[in-house]
């Protein structure tokens, strides 16, 4: 065990961070060529590419820490949904639950919750005792600041827009809210890594997250949903069925042509 925590712990933690970013990127990329405006198409694609970049750095590093010779591609393309460690929030569809539709309000609500969380997390990980992770966080913290800004601007415009946009944005925030609790769930792994100084106790991020998100919702004239139902399980591989379809599409090329590159 080195100063930053045990190898297995660090591998598992990096998978959580990397899988969050990878699944968020893949989901957001569904908007490419289908956004309401060309300009917004580019903005969402840019954000997805930032997230993909984070995922690549984190999963490459995870593979090195594991020491079993697995590359970023092996980890991304050759694990099943049960082996993925992302939170449920990022795998949720971009529209109404169970429907194959794109809803811009739901997408923005997800991005608001997730980018506010990621930004707070990376701000803390910059001081990680794990030098490599601290460097990755240093790059990602600037990217997530922009993602949060983009989500906040749209939340305000839709929430404080027309009666219809307000109604839909409020519904989107209500739909997404229960899934934000999982982001701040601590367990034995995060406790050990927080003590080692390489990880962050997720529960300690919630106050900062709440003050950021509540401020945006207030400016957007939206009501902050009540805390209640809090689905979880993503960190242990227990996902919604939406993840299987997402991975099925993402992994199809690599599984049809193993080791393919371009």
């Amino acid at each position, binding site marked *: 065990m080195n100063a930053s925590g045990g190898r297995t712990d660090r591998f598992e933690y990096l998978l959580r961070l990397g899988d969050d970013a990878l699944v968020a990127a893949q989901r957001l990329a569904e908007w490419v060529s289908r956004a309401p*405006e060309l*300009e917004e198409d*580019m903005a969402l694609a840019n954000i997805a590419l930032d997230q993909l970049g984070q995922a690549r750095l984190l999963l490459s590093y995870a593979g090195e820490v594991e020491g079993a010779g697995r590359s970023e591609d092996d980890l991304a393309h050759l694990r099943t949904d049960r082996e993925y460690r992302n939170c449920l929030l990022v795998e949720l569809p971009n529209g109404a639950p169970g429907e194959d539709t794109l809803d811009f309000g739901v997408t923005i609500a997800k991005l608001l919750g997730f980018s506010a969380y990621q930004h707070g997390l990376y701000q803390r990980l910059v001081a990680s005792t794990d030098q490599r992770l601290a460097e990755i966080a240093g790059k990602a913290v600037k990217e997530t600041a922009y993602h949060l800004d983009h989500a906040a601007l749209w939340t305000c415009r839709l929430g404080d827009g027309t009666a219809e946009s307000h109604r839909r944005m409020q519904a989107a925030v209500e739909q997404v809210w229960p899934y934000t609790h999982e982001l701040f769930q601590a367990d034995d792994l995060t406790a050990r890594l927080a003590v080692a100084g390489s990880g962050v106790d997720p529960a300690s991020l919630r106050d900062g997250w709440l003050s950021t998100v509540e401020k945006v919702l207030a400016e957007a004239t939206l009501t902050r949903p009540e805390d209640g139902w809090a689905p979880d399980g993503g960190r242990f591989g227990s996902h919604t069925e939406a993840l299987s379809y997402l991975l099925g599409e993402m992994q199809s090329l690599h599984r049809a042509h193993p080791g393919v590159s371009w």
Partner: protein
Amino acid sequence: MTSSEWPLWEVFVRPRRGLSHSHVGSLHAPDAKLALRNARDLYTRRQEGVSIWVVPAATITASSPDEKDAFFEPAGDKAYRHPTFYQVPEGAEHL
């Protein structure tokens, strides 16, 4: 919402300190703040600049092609306005 409802904005980017903002193109956005962010995504993806201006296209007063002769023709025969009558000091890269 369709593009026709989003106003047009002209985008100016300053490539680096010491140079002026130059026109690089235009885009649609619902308001100035989003226009600035869209400009960042569309025109500075490859580190093209250090500063961006966005200007509502509707507020720009432009010369008309019909006025071309009256506007620009009279400068044609005034060679003495061109700085070609003195030596450029050695080592001066930007004048």
